[in-house]
């Protein structure tokens, strides 16, 4: 029973990271109808920036905040420079650009910081103030940070005029322009936010998987799975899907498949959901009149 609880709680901690990435992916998907494959590498690059700041002597939380700001601006720049010009281009062009971005970030991270793995510090104390064997301090901290971030994002989208405008611009760009919303700015803002959310995910997972240019591969795959499970049209669903994937990964790993097939498991889930429930658990089913 202890093992089950341990694995579930630990799964929630990694699930929090998958949830963040799933949310980032869905935010961009809502705005431009494409899956950002580069989300993971962007997050990895952000994490390296934070690592560099810490290596230069910055305290953790300062590095954390500066990294978020840089990621936000970087995300906006990527949208403005790379995606705005191909806004109306076909799906394939987008996919090619996503793959290119993935490779560019990966190669540049390796070029600047080398491919050897690095320790990334955890900002949380090494011992909990109370006695438990069920969850580690870092895991608990990750869940806490992620929940705070998710609540902030929810409040932003739900209760602020800019959040409302971003939703409007994503759902109905023509009408949005007609009420004076700059759809371009909203798109850039969306990319900035997604990059920021990804950066948090990267910094939270790095102490566990160690920092290196390929660290996000498995994480992103599980993030994708979370987004697909929850539904690509539902940000809340994607978050729940992410948590679910974290728990499932651990339970399946412990009781069913062992650790060798972890990535396969994520892919199987993606394929199964797309086959049998393409809208995901919480997504809107789009019915088209023909």
């Amino acid at each position, binding site marked *: 029973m202890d093992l089950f609880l341990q694995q579930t709680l630990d799964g929630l901690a990694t699930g929090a990271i998958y949830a963040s990435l799933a949310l980032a992916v869905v935010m961009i998907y809502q705005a431009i109808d494409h899956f950002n494959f580069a989300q993971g590498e962007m997050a990895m690059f952000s994490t390296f920036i934070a690592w560099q700041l810490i290596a230069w002597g910055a305290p953790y939380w300062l590095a954390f905040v500066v990294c978020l700001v840089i990621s936000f601006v970087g995300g906006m720049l990527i949208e403005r420079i790379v995606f705005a010009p191909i806004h109306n281009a076909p799906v394939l062009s987008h996919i090619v650009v996503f793959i290119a971005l993935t490779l560019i970030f990966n190669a540049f991270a390796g070029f600047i910081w080398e491919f050897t793995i690095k320790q990334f510090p955890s900002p949380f104390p090494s011992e909990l103030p109370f006695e438990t064997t069920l969850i580690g301090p870092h895991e608990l901290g990750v869940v806490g940070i992620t929940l705070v971030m998710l609540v902030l994002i929810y409040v932003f989208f739900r209760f602020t*005029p800019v959040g*409302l*405008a971003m*939703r*409007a611009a994503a*759902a*109905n760009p*023509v*009408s*949005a*322009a*007609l*009420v*004076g*919303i*700059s*759809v371009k700015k909203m798109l850039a803002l969306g990319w900035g936010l997604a990059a920021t959310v990804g950066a948090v995910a990267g910094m939270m997972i790095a102490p566990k998987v160690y920092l290196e240019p390929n660290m996000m591969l498995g994480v992103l795959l599980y993030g994708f799975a979370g987004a697909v499970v929850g539904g690509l049209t539902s940000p809340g669903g994607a978050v729940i899907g992410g948590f679910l994937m974290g728990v499932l990964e651990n339970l399946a790993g412990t009781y069913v498949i062992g650790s060798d097939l972890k990535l396969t498991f994520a892919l199987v889930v993606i394929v199964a959901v797309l086959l049998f429930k393409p809208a995901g658990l919480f997504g809107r089913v789009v019915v088209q009149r023909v």
Partner: protein
Amino acid sequence: MALLEVNNLVASYGPIRALHGISFSLEEGSVTTILGANGAGKTTTLRSICGMVSTEGAISFAGQDISRMPTEQIVRQGVAHVPEGRGTFTRVTTEENLRLGSYARKDRKAIEDDIEQVYSYFPRLKERRDQQAGTLSGGEQQMLAVGRALMLRPKLMLLDEPSFGLAPLIVEELFGILRRINEQQKVSMLLVEQNATLALDLANHAYLLETGRVVLSGTSKEIAADETVRKSYLGY
């Protein structure tokens, strides 16, 4: 000086030219209507003013050249477009639709008052304020589109077929409210309508458009009295 001055406007969709150099103007405080058959270029004219199609020629609004501005910038000058098909933000609530209409404004306090003002014009919208806008009926969505446009506190409203697909009683109600808005809030209107009787009744001035050209213009009375208009558009 005219509020809106359109000079030699040419508009094209890709290689296809929809407007062949039309000119017209709209006096401040007036309701001006553009009549014409399907495909005459009425909707294109409205879309051109809002910077939604590529155009040549001059469009000046309140003395300012707006022909090269992006849509959202034109809107911020005080041009509210009630688009063809209503343009409802279907997945947010009725009230959020109205709030979106005021996005370009910064005076928070007045926005709350204006929402109440819109509800006083359209009490039905108040009943449905927390309902997802996509679930409203066609007539309600049209009211919402007008209400959303009002939330900008516009100087000029562009109305694209507001009567389209609505039951006659609702059309009557809607046009009554448009008249009140024009008279009480001094909002100028450029109205595009299939229903020429209705349009000429509300408008002071009218232009007749045929295949992308202005073929006739005058006061609503003159236009309504015109032999060809009477036969082709009014049907008697």
